């Protein structure tokens, strides 16, 4: 067919990076929804965690009491997160990088080992899987150790690393969905607002972290999901067969360098809780916008996503500035997204799954739309923007709209077998 000899058009390659980030986010959300629907949360699994320390909801309270209690809980949680982020900034300032790395490895181990173990126990109980303690412990220990190695030693196959990161996100998100309902929703909104403040305000801890990292030209040790870099071999640009993305921006453009830090999470230890650590590796994620820059002399790269800037470079290289992402850029040039985003998106969808599947689909679409909007906003404004607020806002809005408006409408229509 003549089709095979025609050169490939834009349609084949456009938007690939967005998909490479969307797919793991979707997988994480799907796994959390699956877990939530399989393990119907029984009331005996009461979670004592830092997020519910100020008030524990009982179903007999009035709505106003529940709301106030939820508000107190979330304020307490956000306060703890802020304090710990400031401590992280301090530690980073004092160059205690080794300590941070070890701490992060330890908390991943705890998440994979203890939280993963508890969820495995729920599943074993649910499905009556015949397994004995010793085998289970050996398997669990190996699983956790491989996870820690995969996440912190970059020599592992990238699929294993990505898989483990998604698992960590899923485990933490599942634990968050065990919180009482009002607390979860208010907490999500509070974290979105905190994110907005921490990134955009000049005194925000995340902004300080970014500036520190950029002034020192260092990476922050954190839990980050890195998508595989997009490499085009048939770009049709003769000389450069591999388009590399340059991590460091051009030196004569001061503004660029702040992008280059991959901001990613910190780990918050929850010493009060019996459940273990709560990872708030979200903090870094939402910020960094990074530019992709092109090494070749030619113009725009094919992997440039939908919006193109078309600003001509002002220095010697004729490379064009392409889209700014809301997430970080890894040293190999791939898109990075911090784990906290995964976690909070999945918490929202998991909580929606506890009501009905219609809300799950609506919230999923809303979150994906929010992600897309954030990417576009970054392309337009060209400064660091947090990725959490838009998605969470849309997600919460769609949840309540679906729950109170759409549900009745659809059920009415369907039961009368009237569809359009």
């Amino acid at each position, binding site marked *: 067919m003549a089709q095979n000899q025609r050169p490939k*058009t834009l*349609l084949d390659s456009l938007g690939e990076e967005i998909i490479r980030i969307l797919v793991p986010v979707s997988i994480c959300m799907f796994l959390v929804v699956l877990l939530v629907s399989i393990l119907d949360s029984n009331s005996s699994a009461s979670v004592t965690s830092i997020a519910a320390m100020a008030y524990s909801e009982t179903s007999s309270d009035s709505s106003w009491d529940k709301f106030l209690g939820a508000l107190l809980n979330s304020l307490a949680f956000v306060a703890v997160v802020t304090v710990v982020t400031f401590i992280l900034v301090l530690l980073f300032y004092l160059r205690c990088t080794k300590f941070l790395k070890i701490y992060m490895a330890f908390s991943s181990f705890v998440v994979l080992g203890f939280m993963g173990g508890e969820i495995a126990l729920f599943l074993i109980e649910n499905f009556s899987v015949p397994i004995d303690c010793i085998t289970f412990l050996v398997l669990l220990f190996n699983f956790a150790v491989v996870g820690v190695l995969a996440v912190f030693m970059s020599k592992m196959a990238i699929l294993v690393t990505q898989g483990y990161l998604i698992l960590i996100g899923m485990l933490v998100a599942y634990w968050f969905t065990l919180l009482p309902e009002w607390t979860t929703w208010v907490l999500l909104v509070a974290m979105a607002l905190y994110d907005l403040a921490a990134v955009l305000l000049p005194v925000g801890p995340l902004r300080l972290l970014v500036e520190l990292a950029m002034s020192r030209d260092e990476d922050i040790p954190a839990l980050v999901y890195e998508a595989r870099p997009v490499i085009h071999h048939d770009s049709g640009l003769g000389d450069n067969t591999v388009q590399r993305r340059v991590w460091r921006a051009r030196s004569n453009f001061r503004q660029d360098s702040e992008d280059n830090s991959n901001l990613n999470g910190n780990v918050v230890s929850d010493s009060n809780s019996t459940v273990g650590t709560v990872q708030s590796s979200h903090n870094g994620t939402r910020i960094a916008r990074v530019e992709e820059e092109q090494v070749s002399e030619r113009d725009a790269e094919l992997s440039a996503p939908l919006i193109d800037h078309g600003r001509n470079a002002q220095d010697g290289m004729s490379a064009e500035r392409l889209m700014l992402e809301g997430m970080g850029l890894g040293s190999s040039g791939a898109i990075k997204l911090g784990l906290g985003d995964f976690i909070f998106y999945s918490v929202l969808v998991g909580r929606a799954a506890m009501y009905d599947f219609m809300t799950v689909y609506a919230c999923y679409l809303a979150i994906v739309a929010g992600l897309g909007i954030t990417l576009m906003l970054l392309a337009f404004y060209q400064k660091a923007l947090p990725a959490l607020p838009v998605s969470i806002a849309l997600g919460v809005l769609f949840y309540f709209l*679906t729950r109170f408006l759409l549900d009745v409408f659809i059920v009415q229509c369907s039961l009368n077998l009237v569809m359009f």
Partner: protein
Amino acid sequence: MTVAAGIGYALVALGPSLTLFVSVISKKPFLILTLLSSTLVWLISLIILSGIWRAFLPLNSKTWWPLAILIFTSVAFQEGLRLLFWKVYKRLEDILDAFADRVSKPRLYLTDKMQIALAGGLGHGVAHAVFFCLSLLTPAFGPATYFVDRCSQIPFFLVSAIIALAFVTVHTFSMVIAFNGYSEGNKVDQVFVPSVHLAAGMMTLINFASGGCIIGIPLLFLMAILTLMHCGRMVWRRLTENQRQGNS
């Protein structure tokens, strides 16, 4: 009735769309994005419609004309949105063509444009199937089943899955016809799409009469087949014209 039955119902409604997705759409990332955005647009239109109609629900299930008005307004609204979708797509096409010129790649082929239209239509169809069928399937994964009075011969889940299958077909291919009609200025195509949508919606009203679903559902499938055939004929015509133009 069981997990197997639940998955079966889901596949009845979404099987062909899954095939289309895996074979055509998953190869090109841009098409996946188009699908997601058109699903989102359909969802938003549903939410707006439910917001408007919330005050009138629950409807009296004895009379059929409130439902007729509901269908009419919903279809009109959605067709209006389709026009808007077309306008946005036109703008996007210009941007993409300009970008392609800049990176010295060929402009969008006719098949590319049709694929984008197909992805858009599939998004609408998948949204319909998900919200009208899949979201109500949760009880089907349990141990029992459910029958409605209107169509008491087969379980409710199966009826809704079959209707969803017909509508998925209608939505998917009418988007291709509509985009083609707008770009060519073909009046027949432009009128064909809203009328088929409206007719299909009205056919489901036939289910209202008791025992009506025996007639209603085959008629619905007739509409779906009609859409398929018209789309096939139109695509064939355009492709052969294009080929002839390319060769001459």
